[in-house]
């Protein structure tokens, strides 16, 4: 044997893939993992441990790997904490080791290992107690620097991630012998099957073992089964797909690594996909995980699980070493020795803790029944092991690789995701799935504790047949190949007593001593032990460590393992990148955007936009030469007050309300009366929540006896619609009312200002009289404009000026805006945005969401009398509660800065002159503030205690955040035209 590469294996030797690890060039073949390729290149040292910076090599050959964590790729694509055992080798792969400085071979932080006596479990809790001021500033940065794994690149991930949805009759999780057998049974029966496996090559342990299935090698049988499944239209094979969680109602989460095995994903294609799989039945065939035996210095590179050794030798044709020893408590020692010897690897010793263990008769291998490994030696890798025989004799054996097996744990993780508890099986010395599985789930094969190949094939078939029966299908007769059916022969051995540190949780550096300390300090329940020692809390969720640790706790407490119990598992089964959870929802694609019908028109005019919920609204329309937004807004406001302005108000919610009882319905949802609203008229309405507080306001027009159109504020369009549906369906199902949103159907433009009527008369078709007499304030009508286009005209005003809102089918909004601009050029027509809209309504004292903030009442707004006592309506009764009608309650008032050069900001709190700025002196707060170009002063709306009785007095508006303290006069909130003469003009 030259090098470490053996004959055979499931790798493509016709191609060579160069790759780099810590800057050094190596090569491997398609089919290799990074771990198998490194081993083939003689690299054993792959990382440093989390806390003590101990040199570590590969322990496993699968996703349970605690040690061989590397940073894969570089730059923005660098991905820390990737397990080398599942990283598929590709051309040019670049990997670096983690948690070491300056290099993996010489790590200065290895000093922690010498300090180990001081760094035992609970060290942080005991040591970093004092002083408290050091917790975040001193201790945490030091600990984070010293302990840890890889680091993020700090750059944006350049790749895309998708989400998707799949549906099937039977989801089979795991494509080992049980999963393949189940998928064949269900697939041949015509059921819709998804077979998912985290590996890139389906077959599970069949690829790693040398057993025959019938006349074929296991791997060949697996390949043949996969080929048959691939030929079935009703079966979807999903390799590289980890089922990460079992959720409610038969929904499973799965991450498919679409492009992780490529240097970069193809253009437009995602790197990974998060699938939500909805299935009628699920079969968990997740196999089992081998567990180590703890002994002193059992974490040296070269010491790995015996099953992993077989996988490296059989699947990847890699020798784990030149002189291999085995330390086992079950027949895996025999299997491993035979497989290695068959491949020409020298096996130096088989240390079998079972005194009765039979000698497999491997030439050149010492067989030591009843013996134990009690220590290891070697710098940065294993050189020798120390053995104690059944007779108590101790000696060293040369070995550069040691295979360890303490038995196998069924992978019950997904059975626990809905609080299912595994149960202890004494015969297997393992926890097996309990009875309380997630709905629709069954378990087969090694995951169910059925460890033989025959058992896996048979139980997979049987479970699939039961699932088919549940689904009303009949299963085809099984065609199972002959396979080994060896019974389990295991004698539990969790740790070897003795001096030195014996590692349990390799990833979090938890030793047998730490468990003893937890016991000594009375952290004895498994949950307490776990949290005190951090056992099982690393990214591997303790897949290789949990059971040995709780078995030791059981020993210490004198209880059985069944009595001691086990911690359970949460999703995800293996670590999931945040990128795939986010999917496409990143940056500007985080949420959808809604554009108004005049958006493109406004954009072409250089409008500045502002987000209003999902909407983008024009905030203001700067003109060349304007240097400050206020300059623009002042111009827009004055244009509306003096001439005519245009503003897209499509974003306000529009709800079409029809039915014989539409009037009664509207009358019940609004606090003020609507039953007698005449056809062709609009009314302002106040809507209360059930608890009597204000919910929303808006205008509602009556287009016909049985037809209303309600408008809502932009922010509340959805909530009000939901509220109305609730009232219609649940509160008053007897009323004949039909609702539908028409927000998007109509483009609505506010035409405001003294010249608005003149402008509208230029577009309204002849035959529609909109004179003041024929179409007074609060009138509405369905008319036509521009040569026959259907439109709805409302004479309503938010600005306080003579104003209208005109609605046309949305596709014409853009053209109507252009037409109004063209026809109004000589009238001084000016488009205005939400900023000017806000100034106009503050000057007029109109409320918006700032005032309707969910904490205020109609009375607070000075509209208490609008809550009718002549009828019942939602919220009316509770609005009369004593506490909401206090004499010293809040009132909406206007504020005007005494010094026009001072500033007023929304959010400021109101205080008496001379009062300290503390909460006890708080009199209320400023809800909305602006510079009024009309009054040439800073003004605001505010809620003030007993405000209505304090007109003309002076208080202070204090904003501690911006250091403002402004003297303000309390005035009416109606700064403009308090009598409403303008809007009736």
């Amino acid at each position, binding site marked *: 044997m030259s090098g470490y590469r053996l004959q055979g294996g499931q790798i493509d030797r016709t191609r060579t893939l160069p790759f780099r690890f810590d800057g050094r060039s190596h090569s491997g073949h398609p089919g290799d993992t990074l771990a198998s390729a490194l081993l083939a290149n003689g690299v054993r040292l792959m990382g440093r441990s989390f806390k003590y910076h101990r040199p570590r090599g590969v322990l496993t050959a699968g996703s349970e790997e605690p040690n061989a964590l590397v940073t894969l790729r570089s730059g923005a694509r660098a991905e820390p904490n990737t397990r080398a055992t599942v990283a598929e080798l590709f051309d040019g792969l670049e990997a670096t080791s983690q948690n070491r400085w300056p290099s993996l071979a010489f790590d200065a932080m290895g000093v922690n290992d010498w300090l180990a006596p001081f760094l035992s479990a609970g060290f942080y809790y005991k040591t970093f107690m004092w002083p408290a001021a050091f917790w975040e500033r001193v201790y945490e940065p030091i600990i984070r620097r010293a302990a840890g794994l890889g680091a993020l690149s700090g750059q944006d991930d350049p790749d*895309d991630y*998708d*989400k*998707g*949805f*799949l*549906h099937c009759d039977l989801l089979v999780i795991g494509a080992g012998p049980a999963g393949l057998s189940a998928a064949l049974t269900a697939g041949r029966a015509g059921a*819709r099957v998804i077979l998912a496996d985290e590996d890139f090559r389906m077959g599970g342990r069949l690829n790693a073992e040398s057993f025959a299935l019938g006349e074929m090698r296991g791997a060949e049988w697996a390949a043949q089964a996969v080929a048959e499944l691939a030929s079935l239209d009703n079966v979807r094979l999903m390799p590289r797909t980890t089922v990460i969680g079992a959720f409610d109602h038969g929904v499973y989460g799965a991450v498919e690594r679409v492009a992780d095995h490529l240097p970069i994903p193809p253009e*437009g*294609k*995602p790197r990974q996909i998060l699938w*939500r799989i*909805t299935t009628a039945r699920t079969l968990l065939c997740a196999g089992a995980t081998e567990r180590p035996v703890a002994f002193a210095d059992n974490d040296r590179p070269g010491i790995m699980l015996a099953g992993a050794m077989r996988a490296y030798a059989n699947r990847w044709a890699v020798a784990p070493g030149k002189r291999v020893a085995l330390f086992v408590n079950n027949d895996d020692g025999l299997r491993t020795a035979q497989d290695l010897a068959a491949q020409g690897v020298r096996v130096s010793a088989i240390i079998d803790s079972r005194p009765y263990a039979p000698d497999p008769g491997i030439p050149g291998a010492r067989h030591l029944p009843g013996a134990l490994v009690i220590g290891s030696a070697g710098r940065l890798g294993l050189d020798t092991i120390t053995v104690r025989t059944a007779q108590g004799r101790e000696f060293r054996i040369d070995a550069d690789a040691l295979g360890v097996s303490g038995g196998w744990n069924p992978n019950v993780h997904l059975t626990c995701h809905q609080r299912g508890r595994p149960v202890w099986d004494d015969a297997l010395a393992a926890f097996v799935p309990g009875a309380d599985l997630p709905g629709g789930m069954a378990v087969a094969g090694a995951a169910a504790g059925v460890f033989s190949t025959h058992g896996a094939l048979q139980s997979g078939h049987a479970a699939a047949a039961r699932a088919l029966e549940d689904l009303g299908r009949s299963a085809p007769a099984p065609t199972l190949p002959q396979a080994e059916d060896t019974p389990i022969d295991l004698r539990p051995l969790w740790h070897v007593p003795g001096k030195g540190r014996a590692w349990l949780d390799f990833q979090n550096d938890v030793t047998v001593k730490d468990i003893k300390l937890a016991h000594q300090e009375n952290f004895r329940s498994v949950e307490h032990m776990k949290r005190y020692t951090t056992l099982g809390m690393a990214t591997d969720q303790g897949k290789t460590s949990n059971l040995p640790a709780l078995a030791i706790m059981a020993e210490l407490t004198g209880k059985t393992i069944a009595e001691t119990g086990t911690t359970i598992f949460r999703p995800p089964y293996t670590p999931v990148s945040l990128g795939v959870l986010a999917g*496409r*929802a990143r940056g500007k*694609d985080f*949420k*959808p*955007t*809604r*554009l108004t*019908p005049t*958006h*493109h028109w406004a954009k072409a005019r250089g409008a500045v936009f502002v987000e209003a919920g*999902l*909407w983008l609204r024009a905030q203001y329309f700067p003109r060349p030469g304007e240097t400050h937004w206020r300059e623009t807004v002042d111009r827009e406001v004055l244009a509306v007050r003096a001439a005519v302005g245009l503003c897209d108000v*499509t974003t306000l919610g529009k709800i*079409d309300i*029809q*039915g*014989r009882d539409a009037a009664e319905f509207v009358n019940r949802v609004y606090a003020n009366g609507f039953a007698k609203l005449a056809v062709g008229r609009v009314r302002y309405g106040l809507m209360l929540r059930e608890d009597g507080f204000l919910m929303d306001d808006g205008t509602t027009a009556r287009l016909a006896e*049985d*037809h209303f159109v309600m408008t809502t504020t932009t922010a509340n369009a959805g909530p009000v619609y939901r509220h109305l549906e609730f009232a219609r369906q649940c509160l008053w199902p*007897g*009323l*004949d009312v*039909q609702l*539908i949103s*028409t*927000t*998007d*159907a*109509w*483009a609505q433009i506010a035409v405001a200002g003294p010249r608005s009527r003149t402008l509208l008369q230029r577009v309204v078709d002849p035959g529609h009289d909109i004179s003041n007499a024929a179409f007074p304030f609060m009138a509405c009508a369905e008319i*036509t*404009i*521009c*040569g*026959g*286009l*259907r439109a709805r005209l409302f004479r309503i005003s938010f600005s306080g000026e003579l104003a209208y809102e005109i609605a*046309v*089918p*949305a*596709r*014409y909004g*853009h*053209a*109507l805006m252009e*037409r109004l601009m063209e026809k109004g050029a000589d009238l001084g027509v000016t488009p205005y945005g939400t900023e000017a809209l806000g100034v106009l309504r503050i000057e007029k004292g109109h409320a918006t969401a700032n005032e309707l903030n969910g904490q205020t009442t109609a009375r607070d707004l000075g509209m208490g009398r609008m809550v009718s006592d002549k009828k019942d309506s939602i919220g009316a009764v509770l609005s009369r509660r004593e506490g909401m009608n206090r004499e010293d309650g809040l009132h909406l008032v206007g504020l005007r800065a005494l010094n026009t050069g001072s500033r007023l900001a929304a959010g400021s709190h109101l205080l008496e002159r001379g009062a300290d700025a503390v909460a006890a002196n708080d009199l209320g707060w400023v809800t909305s503030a602006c510079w009024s170009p009309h009054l040439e002063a800073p003004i605001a709306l505010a809620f003030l205690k007993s405000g209505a009785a304090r007109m003309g007095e002076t208080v202070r508006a204090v904003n501690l955040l911006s250091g403002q303290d402004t003297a303000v006069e309390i005035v009416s909130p109606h700064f403009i035209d308090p009598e409403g003469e303008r809007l009736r003009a």
Partner: protein
Amino acid sequence: MPDLTPITPLGGSSLRTDTIGAISIAEADDWALASVAARAGQLEDTLTRARKLTGLDLPGPGGLVAGGDWRAWWMAPEAWMLATPLSASEDIVAAVKPALGDAASITEQTDAWARFDITAPVGFLERLCNVDPARVTPGTATRTVMEHMGVVVLRHGDQAFSVLGVRSSAGSLHHALLTAARAVA
């Protein structure tokens, strides 16, 4: 005819079609839409009158029917959407309301929606919405969600779909459809 020129849901002067591999996504605006909601106790009358107007039996939950100039699909209990060529019935309420009388409430929905006609294998939907391709057979209408946007998916034929979403989000919906098409094409 009004002397104003409409714009398309995506804001253009002409309709946009994108072809990505075997998938085509075409912005469409040629349907007039009206919602029909039966008034209390008027279900039978609504069905009868709708049949007389359109020749169609208004379908049950998830159903889509088409014939002559009309299409109808289920939207909610006792509520449907009617579609007919916009060129023939610009004011669809004027066309529908006389026929339905007081049996149902009719609301114009033409411009409430943006529509994309899609030619794609049914698997295209996997990356967009939680629908089961085996159940979304030709002749179904499914209300679902794509990237947080409420949509209606109509399946007309094996590879023929329409997706309708709110008009104001036409750009976001179009982007979601194109992105998914690029990912699966």
